[in-house]
């Protein structure tokens, strides 16, 4: 990882209402290198989308609040920008693809106009012909006939709509693309198509990407780095190699992998991690995963674990307190 495009440092986000305070994101660190793809994995409600929204300052104004941390995009802190400055970033430098293509297109605008809007907002003074040319270009890029630009979203299928949404997001050739579960609402065959397309476009355009998903298959296929999120914390992070092939894992990551159905074994029931995610209005004092962890020790309930690092791999678990780095280093020195 040489040059960072996005550097999230100690970000905490709360949703505050009169009745309660929800700690959605608690002091997370994320780094995305130029041209790299980071997969943010975690179950529903872990704070993945909240993280994505806070990057673009799109948290709901009345309730959502960033309590600490920095989000640096190419060295400038996005959180300190005013509304006007951040608008320049949104869609121009950082674009976002939302989860559900069915609802993320305006039903009363033609798809061409919607792509045009994204282009016009960030390129003032383009002539009509140039804009039309760009729309055609973007549609062709995502595999849609340019002649269909005068049609309305309801005339497209789900997969086609997601392609349009991606075309909109890429309309201004952003440096960073945030994809918030882009394939969750699609069926499996279309998922594969859209994923391949995203991967291909990313490679061609050199876009960095933050891929939010709860599908580990997607991560394996597309991402360079992975961060596993649980109850608003990054419990494990590393390269795809570290997470998928490494030996040391956070018990939650282990559980995640354990719950992938296996074709060859004939289990009657699907494996799952017992228990539920802790109530984010009332997080446990010690390790957030302790109530569900099968390796839970006394210290886990009392003390919040610190992050332990290897070169690229990091873990937040008492099991590895003081072990990870030493073990690895010893292992390496032995080999050398």
């Amino acid at each position, binding site marked *: 990882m040489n040059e960072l495009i996005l550097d999230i440092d100690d970000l905490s986000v709360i949703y505050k209402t009169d009745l309660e305070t929800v700690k959605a994101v608690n002091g997370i660190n994320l780094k995305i290198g130029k041209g790299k793809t980071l997969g943010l994995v975690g179950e529903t409600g872990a704070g993945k989308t909240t993280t994505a929204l806070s990057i*673009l300052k*799109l948290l709901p*104004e*009345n309730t959502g609040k960033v309590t600490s941390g920095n989000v640096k995009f190419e060295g400038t802190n996005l959180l300190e920008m005013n509304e006007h400055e951040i*608008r*320049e*970033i*949104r*869609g*121009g430098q950082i*674009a*976002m693809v*939302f*989860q*559900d293509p069915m*609802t*993320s*297109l*305006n*039903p*009363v*605008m033609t798809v061409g106009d919607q792509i045009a*809007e*994204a282009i016009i*907002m*960030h390129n003032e003074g383009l002539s009509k012909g140039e804009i039309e040319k760009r729309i055609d270009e973007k549609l062709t890029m995502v595999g849609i006939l340019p*002649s*269909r630009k*005068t*049609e*309305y979203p*309801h005339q497209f299928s789900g997969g086609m709509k997601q392609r349009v*949404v991606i075309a*909109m*997001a890429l309309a201004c050739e952003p440096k960073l693309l945030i994809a918030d579960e882009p394939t969750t609402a699609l069926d499996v065959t279309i998922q594969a198509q859209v994923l391949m397309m995203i991967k291909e476009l990313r490679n061609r355009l050199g876009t960095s990407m933050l891929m939010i998903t709860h599908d580990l298959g997607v991560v394996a296929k597309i991402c360079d780095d992975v961060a596993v999120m649980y109850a608003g914390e990054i419990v494990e992070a590393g390269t795809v190699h570290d997470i998928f092939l490494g030996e040391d894992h956070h018990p939650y990551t282990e559980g995640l992998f354990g719950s992938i159905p296996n074709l060859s074994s004939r289990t009657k029931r699907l494996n799952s991690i017992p228990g539920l995610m802790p109530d984010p209005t009332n997080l446990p004092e010690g390790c957030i995963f302790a109530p569900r962890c099968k390796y839970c020790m006394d210290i886990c309930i009392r003390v919040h674990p610190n992050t332990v690092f290897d070169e690229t791999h990091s873990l937040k678990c008492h099991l590895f307190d003081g072990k990870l780095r030493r073990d690895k280093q010893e292992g390496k020195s032995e080999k050398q």
Partner: protein
Amino acid sequence: MDNVMRNSGISFKKQSQTKEIWRRFKKSKGAVIGLVMLVIILMILLFADFIAPYTAATKQNLANKLQGPSLAHLFGTDSYGRDVFARIVHGGRTSILIAILSTISSCIIGSALGAIAGYFGGKIDSIIMRSLDIFMSVPDILFTMAVVFALGANFVNLLVALTLAYFTNYVRLVRSQVLNLAELDYVEAARAGGASSARIIASHILPNAMGVIIVNTTLNVSKIILYESTLSFLGLGMPPPAPEWGLMLSEAREFMRTSPHLLFFPAMAIVLTACSVNLIGDGLRDALDPHLKS
């Protein structure tokens, strides 16, 4: 359709949006009848001077008073001997013009306020909605009467009074629509794409609320026609001797038993106009809803 079939699956049927709406509008018989009626009524009002001279509507001729319908006076004459047909033809002009203009002005003011209140929420919403409560706490008719009394009855003041009485409906209607629409993903997506609030309201929220607004507007036109007639019935419309449908009704009251045609024709004019506008409104509602495409 044949064309599409012959060229097999790959070709797409292309139709412009207006054509599409018109096609669906035509499907509803009521809407077409309403449209034809309204066009005829508007043509009559537009060319009123060629159909019957304005003087026939205002010139008194006591020798001819209270005549029944005849060839000379199609709808008969009133208690001053004025031609009822001419009065209806000319009277509708002001009524409909006021109805249309005040609907448009209340729609624009109301939609803008409603969109702002619904989109920004919080304090702005509270301020707008609470000031609206003041307007709404006074009954419409009382409010309009008070305004007309205070300012005097003429064209502009009637317009102001009716606008003030009706814009509140739009604020509430548009606000409730915007509250729903602002939560939708494509609004969020537009914001993530760098759109400003003004742009989001103008190009994403209002167009999606347009169906409801247009339908409400057409239905409101008929309401205001009735309302304006009510006002002139109460003597708060355009000052006499200007002909007006409501005023004619009010004058006809005294002669209801002896000359029912005085009541019948202006009442029919009001009913037909309101009815045709309502029919069009219903047809538009179906035609404009993109979800009902068939």
